[in-house]
């Protein structure tokens, strides 16, 4: 355990030093995206990895978070910091309304309904022009105001400075995730994945815990969406389609479901692989899809558990 804490701290120090080392701004940008996807994937892991339900709406939830944060800060005069808090809450409310009816069904049905819901969100974002700006989206979304910290100017228009904000958010959400999956709720999630009927027979109201997992996943996606909106300053519906939800699912599968580090590793892969596969826009997604299928066929447990297995041959 001691060793593990050390490793985490060393890794954290390395990640914190990254903007100082990376000279190319584009790499900082990719690192920010990877961290945002890590947050989304960590949330997805609650419902997909731990509870065993595939939800295909995480991309839509990112959209809800992004748009509500942008809209609130631009139209109501709400300070950006408060918008960061309000956006995930809005997303959670939306998730509660969808999760309640859709979690009455299991397996495939649930996935289909959530995917349909992602499409509803998308159609809404495209058509509610007065609220969302339609296809042309919302632009000039303000960055959070800067301040002076220990005599140093902090300016969130600067990518490197925003990097630390996202890093902080990722660390906080990871700590929360670690606590959550070890809590009673987390154990019940795993019991549901193993055998839902048996868990119910033990007197556990499983639907409450499934709903909790779903809403928690929405909170994570909503926060990441809000951070994304104020980071890039411009949003339109495109990045919040079903494709984005697929990315979240892929991150969890590739990294390793039901592990804490898995979704983070997966998120890095999800951002890095398309960059490395930069042959042509369409080709890389074909490669990506093939990779997803091969991953499920040949290492269904994901990268992290597989590597961990190599280092502990005794188990």
């Amino acid at each position: 355990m001691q060793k593990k804490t050390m490793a985490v701290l060393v890794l954290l120090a390395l990640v914190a030093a990254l903007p100082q080392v990376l000279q190319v701004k584009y790499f900082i940008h990719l690192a920010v995206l990877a961290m945002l996807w890590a947050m989304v994937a960590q949330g997805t892991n609650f419902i997909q990895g731990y509870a065993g339900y595939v939800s295909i709406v995480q991309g839509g939830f990112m959209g809800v978070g992004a748009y509500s944060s942008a809209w609130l800060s631009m139209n109501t005069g709400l300070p950006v910091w408060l918008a960061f808090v309000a956006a995930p809450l809005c997303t959670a409310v939306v998730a509660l309304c969808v999760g309640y009816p859709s979690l009455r069904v299991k397996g495939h049905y649930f996935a289909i309904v959530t995917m349909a819901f992602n499409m509803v969100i998308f159609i809404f974002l495209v058509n509610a022009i007065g609220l969302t700006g339609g296809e042309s989206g919302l632009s000039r979304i303000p960055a959070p105001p800067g301040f002076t910290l220990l005599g140093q100017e902090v300016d969130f228009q600067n990518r490197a400075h925003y990097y630390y904000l996202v890093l902080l958010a990722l660390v906080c959400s990871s700590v929360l995730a670690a606590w959550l999956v070890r809590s009673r709720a987390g154990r019940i999630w795993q019991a549901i994945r193993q055998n839902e009927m048996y868990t119910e027979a033990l007197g556990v109201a499983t639907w409450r815990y499934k709903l909790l997992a779903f809403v928690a996943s929405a909170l994570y996606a909503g926060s990441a969406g809000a951070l994304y909106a104020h980071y890039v300053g411009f949003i339109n519906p495109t990045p919040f389609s079903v494709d984005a939800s697929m990315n979240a699912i892929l991150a969890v599968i590739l990294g390793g479901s039901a592990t804490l580090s898995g979704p983070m590793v997966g998120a890095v892969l999800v951002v890095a692989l398309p960059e490395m596969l930069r042959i042509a826009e369409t080709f890389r997604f074909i490669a990506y899809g093939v990779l997803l299928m091969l991953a499920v066929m040949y290492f269904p447990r994901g990268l992290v558990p597989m590597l961990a297995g190599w280092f502990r041959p005794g188990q």
Partner: protein
Amino acid sequence: MFIELIQQILNGLVVGSVYTLIALGLTVIFGILGIAHFAHGSVAMFGGYLTHALMQRMGVNILLAMVPAMLVGALLGMLIERLAYRPVRAGPPINAFIVALGLTMVIEKLNLLLFGVDQVVLPTPFGRTLEWGEWAMPELRIYVFVIAVLLVLALTLFMHRTWMGASIRAVAQNRSAAVLMGVNVNRVSSIVFALSSALGVAAGVLIGALFAIAPGVSGGLVIKGFAVLILGGLGSIPGAIVGGLILGVSEALAAGFVSSAYKDVISFVIMIAVLLLRPEGLMRRKT
């Protein structure tokens, strides 16, 4: 008002017959193999584009181009079953699921690569509009409906009148018993995918003739197919037929009397309503 209402309903039935074709393919696969075949919509789009390409290259009309396209679709279906789904059949259902998602991504982008990004309308020789006094009906819609009905009939006959159809139903009812009776499950899976992909291709062609096909259409199509299945009861062929027609009519009415921008939301609303009130679907008795 009354005439408009009836006409919207008729339009809805035409579109609904196409949804039925999509849903039949999905329901046969689901009922027999337990796979939610998300890539079915992309297969339909592939068929539509392929037919268009055949029509242009070879200068044939839509009916002549549709037949070879359906055959190619059947082969594609068999390929999908063999390469993508068979390797994960023994694993937990979530694996087949993820494979379906990956497959969707691949076929969707292959479509883009092969046929480009343009929206395409399949030209037909049926451009007239039939009129009786206040009534008007484009000739094309009648042909679409007739073709869809014929295909549905053909599938039903195949399932109930042939040896292969009987084997398929046997696997759907009880896989292990069917295996004991000497049914080759691999062959059945293969045939099922061939059949449903051919139907999907036909649906893609009909949609291309009625409206237009474009790269983004497939996702909506597969969701509608699943909405029909949830409405009718997963795995039920009569459910898919009735459900498709109901969905088509409700959409047409919503587009005509509420808002056309949000007509695609109808399938979602229906899905949620059915799940809340009657999760086993309209045509299924609770077991």
